[in-house]
């Protein structure tokens, strides 16, 4: 997931970023099955945002906020140090309830 975060931090956050993020996150489940639930939720979050703006450009503010939110959630997910099952579940629930912007 570090590679996914490094890639995301290089992006400027046009809608294609979120479609590509969705594909990358879903693909990553094969090599990191222990993070499959997390990656599925993050992929869905990015995909919902891309669907919401289908064919529309973003404003600079929306682009910056959405990219910041997605990056922050991914950073939280890969923060160093093991977290217990309860914290892990809480993070999954947080992402499950999140919407970008």
């Amino acid at each position, binding site marked *: 997931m570090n590679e996914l975060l490094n890639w995301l931090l*290089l992006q400027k*956050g*046009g809608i*294609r970023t979120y479609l590509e993020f969705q594909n990358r996150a879903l693909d990553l489940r094969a090599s990191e099955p222990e993070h499959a639930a997390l990656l599925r939720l993050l992929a869905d979050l990015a995909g919902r945002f891309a669907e919401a703006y289908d*064919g529309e*450009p*973003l*404003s*600079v*503010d929306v682009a910056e906020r959405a990219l910041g939110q997605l990056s922050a959630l991914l950073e939280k997910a890969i923060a160093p140090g093991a977290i217990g099952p309860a914290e892990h579940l809480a993070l999954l629930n947080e992402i499950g309830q999140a919407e970008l912007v």
Partner: protein
Amino acid sequence: MTKSETGRQVAQLLFQAGAVQVSRNQPFILAAGWASPVYVDVRLLLGEPGPRKAVTDLALAYVEANFPAGRFDAIAGAETAGIPFAAWLADRAGLKLRYVRKRPLGIGRNAQVEGGSVDGMRVLLMDDLTTDGGSKLNFARGLRAAGANVEHVLTIFYHDVFPGAAARLSEVGLTLHALATWADMLGAEASRQLAAEDRAEVERFLADPVAWSARHGGRTSLTPLS
């Protein structure tokens, strides 16, 4: 009708439909991450019978003038806004219609192409708007994976300011055809309706779109963002 006459007429329709939106203070971030002071919402041609008939007439005339009769078996509309334009053109041209999703469904048949088989067919891909060509590559890949022969893409408007789109498509055997480009837009009679400050900003952007984008929070270079 020449390409520039077609371009000017399409540009006129776009201006009349209010499709040219300028935002000097809050730039748009386009799909590929470029910042731009202007966005052309081609979908505004969909709603009213007059403009959609006019743009379909122009698309049909373009196809008839630039391809031999019988060159295509089907027209495939790109999800989302390419679909209605493709449907009207296919209807007028008497061709089969298909549509192609941004990605396969991932369930069931996992289809990316809908409306019937395209296996062995010569297909014209149609979309409303092209910026850097990235999404067209994806649609063409989907059609080709389903067995279609796709060599041409027809778009209503080509936001032709960022270099490399036509070359990128050409590398994979696709030729881009646009009914209108920025040169047509600025040459259209109706472009006079742009406020002077808006037109000046659009011209500054068009003079160096990469630098403009970089100054306004968008992508800073043509190099793909890995």
